[in-house]
């Protein structure tokens, strides 16, 4: 028992230690706490307003909503854990291997550590607040709701830990892990867009209760949502179903615990990845890059983009956005272009943390005395070449999907949009060359893309938005021109002027970004090395 409590205490000790090390971590932690308080306040508000006058008739619709919401939340938590939060590397089971803690006790400790974390505590309080929603159905229903809250949190935690343990244990080779990571990410994005896909934008994107009731009825018997069905079983007097669902939840938790424990054992006994050794002949892409220090940076970056799943998945995002928006845009063909813009913005967000992906290896260029501008040029060469080509192809596809392909005014408009996208992309990459030297947040190590350095979630939730907002700011000239020229062309002004304005805007920001980013990198290189060394130890 003492080991379990010690591991739980360890989680908070590490969290506080991480927050103390960096003011940015403190900012991120503060924001996380504020968001948690907002979630609690929102839940309470919902319970107060929606519970007003709730009776058995209106409870049927509320039931459908709550069941579907919990199911969606459960799936999101599982997927989010896999991709973004992941298995905390600081509390990785490998760290405990020398202590000889029995597998069950260790797994219990890790589970308890997860349950006492901020997200779990926030979820519990929110669910407890939502219990007040059922006050119109009687005190018994409220009591059942209160008891169902910790059961829901425990079930979500168990499921996510089991899935994560399976993923990291069974994907034994690096290639399998990389593939799994990418597949999970794609699935997550597609699931997130499911509601809009079912009800396309032309129908105002709403789903009726009647549409989802059949799904809710099924989900209510699954561990994903059974906990939120319990109060309504009590309200209807369906005690047999209530007991059945409790049994399902209990069995799920037990089964997930067993799986996680098995994975711990498997990991412990099969330590040491086997797999084909990775070979490459000769210099590879080094021969295709300029024979200069910046060419070396470009070559190294291209090689890493191929072998690094953390970076690779960002390049899948534009395709996913285009597919999702293309499907959602049934009836609104122009919606596909939103996917293109969003893809461009997300690519820029990734480049804004490019140094973090290099990790302590950045020391090689600091030791070599590489000028910062050479580094920025080398990276921009690769980003621009790959991303511009990518975006141009996307624009062609979007033009096809949106029927802008067939010539005339629409084709001209498509070309203007393509130029604007390129301008936004160039401006974003330019801005990223500056921001990446100033705002660096930790990323998972390359051999453990599922893991999460302590404190990453907080910084990762905040820093990318700086790039996003900054991207909008630096393309203000283009935005102003859009409104001045009345970009839809309906005002009779030559909207084609938007194209050169956007390109010049983008090129200017790119050039400034490379210049300033290089200077900032020169001045801050030692601090950056220290930051990345610290992140590597997380």
């Amino acid at each position: 028992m003492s080991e379990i409590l010690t591991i739980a205490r360890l989680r908070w000790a590490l969290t506080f230690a991480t927050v103390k090390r960096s003011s940015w971590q403190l900012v991120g932690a503060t924001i996380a706490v504020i968001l948690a308080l907002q979630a609690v306040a929102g839940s309470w508000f919902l319970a107060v307003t929606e519970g007003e006058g709730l009776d058995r008739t209106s409870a049927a619709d509320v039931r459908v909503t709550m069941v579907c919401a919990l199911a969606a939340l459960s799936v999101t938590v599982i997927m989010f854990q896999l991709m973004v939060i992941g298995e905390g590397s600081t509390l990785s089971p490998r760290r405990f291997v020398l202590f000889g803690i029995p597998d069950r006790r260790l797994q219990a400790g890790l589970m308890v550590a997860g349950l006492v974390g901020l997200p779990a505590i926030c979820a519990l309080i929110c669910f407890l607040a939502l219990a007040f929603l059922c006050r119109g159905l009687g005190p018994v229903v409220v009591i059942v709701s209160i008891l169902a809250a910790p059961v829901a949190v425990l079930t979500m935690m168990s499921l996510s830990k089991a899935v994560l343990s399976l993923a990291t244990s069974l994907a034994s080779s690096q290639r399998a892990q990389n593939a799994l990571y990418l597949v999970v990410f794609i699935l997550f994005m597609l699931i997130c867009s499911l509601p809009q896909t079912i009800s396309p934008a032309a129908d105002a994107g709403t789903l009726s209760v009647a549409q989802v009731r059949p799904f809710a009825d099924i989900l209510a018997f699954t561990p994903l949502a059974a906990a939120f069905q319990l109060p309504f079983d009590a309200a209807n007097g369906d005690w047999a179903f209530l007991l059945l669902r409790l049994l399902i939840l209990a069995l799920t938790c037990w089964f997930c615990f067993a799986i996680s424990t098995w994975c711990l054992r498997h990991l412990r006994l099969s330590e040491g990845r086997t797999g084909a050794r990775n070979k490459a002949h000769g210099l590879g892409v080094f021969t295709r890059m300029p024979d200069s220090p910046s060419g070396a940076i470009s070559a190294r970056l291209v090689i890493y983009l191929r072998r690094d799943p953390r970076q690779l998945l960002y390049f899948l995002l534009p395709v996913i956005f285009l597919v999702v928006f293309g499907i959602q845009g049934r009836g609104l063909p122009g919606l596909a272009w939103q996917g293109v813009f969003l893809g461009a913005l997300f690519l820029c967000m990734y480049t804004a943390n490019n140094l973090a992906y290099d990790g302590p290896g950045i020391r090689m260029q600091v030791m070599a005395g590489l000028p910062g501008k050479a580094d920025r040029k080398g990276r921009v060469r690769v980003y621009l070449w790959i991303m511009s080509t990518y975006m141009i192809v996307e624009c062609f596809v979007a033009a096809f999907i949106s029927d802008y392909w067939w010539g005339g005014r629409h084709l001209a408009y498509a070309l203007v949009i393509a130029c604007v996208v390129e301008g936004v992309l160039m401006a974003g990459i330019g801005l990223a060359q500056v921001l990446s030297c100033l705002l660096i947040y930790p990323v998972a190590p390359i051999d453990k893309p599922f893991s999460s350095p302590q404190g990453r979630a907080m910084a990762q939730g905040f820093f990318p938005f700086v790039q996003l907002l900054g991207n909008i700011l630096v393309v203000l000239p283009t935005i102003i021109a859009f409104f001045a020229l009345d970009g839809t062309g309906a005002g009779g002004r030559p909207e084609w002027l938007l194209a050169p304005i956007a390109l010049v805007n983008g090129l200017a920001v790119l050039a400034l970004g490379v210049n300033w980013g290089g200077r900032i990198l020169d001045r801050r290189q030692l601090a950056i090395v220290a930051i990345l060394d610290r992140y590597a130890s997380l």
Partner: protein
Amino acid sequence: MSPSQNIPIGAAPAPLLPPSDPTAAVSIRGLCKRFESKLAVNGLSLDIPVGSFYGLVGPNGAGKTTTLNMATGLLLPDAGSVSVMGRDVWSDVNRAKRSIGVMPQAGQVFDRLTGLQLLVYSGMLRGMKRAEAVARAKDLLAAFDLVDAADRMVSDYSSGMGKKICLASAMIHSPRLLVLDEPFESVDPVSSANLKDILAEYVSTGGTVIVSSHVMALVERMCTHVAVINDGHVLADGTVAEVAAGEDLEDRFLDLVGGRHAAARIDWLNGGADPTGPAGLGHDVRPAEGDGPTGEGLDPAGIRSPGGLNGSQGSDPGDGAGAR
């Protein structure tokens, strides 16, 4: 060579330090670095002659790595100066780095590159043309017995191979000064001997090597000069013979840094010798009468301490723990 002038921080009116030696490979004067409450380097001064194989030794936390990082432009000092080949490092750090080769640690390289790619990358970063970098990389791979692993990712290398490729990456631009942190750790004896030959050859052509190491036998065998560092300043420096002063270098090192004490005999740490029960579970395992090292007894906590239990001076011939 006389002991270096060391000026601790906070001492009242410190004497002026002699100017940096322009003929030295590395000349350090009054180097200081503080990390929050810890003073890692405390007014350290040192001259490293050109063409020397210089060993930097000291206990953990002595300030060796911090000193080397400051001397090679990788960590900004709080005070003091460093010059390499007569030039102040911090006035033009990128220029200084061109004549320095610092061996990175295994986790500080891009290990998703192959061995050949890593070396070429290292050379090109320093402004070498690709063709020249490739030629030198191939020479280094042959010298370090890594030809068969040239096309394998560095992440698939063993720790010894990783050390070798890291050392090679520090040498590709033919620096005048090589700085190596624990270069022979995890390297097998054959490879270690080959590396030593390469480094000895490098020194014989006028290069200077600074090695930070804990292995006294290595330092004694390979180094021409040594500096003993502790608590952020130099305790002794000079040729190996001068510092050893007639003793074994390791013994001299231990005398200088201190901290050595008689082995503490912990009551419950008995390797399971007690037949009545497992050790460490509340069983007081008292030694048999006459057992135990000379002059030691038990304190109330059950841990032996000097002074003796009852004045017994006997020692059990079979007990080797107190033999040192």
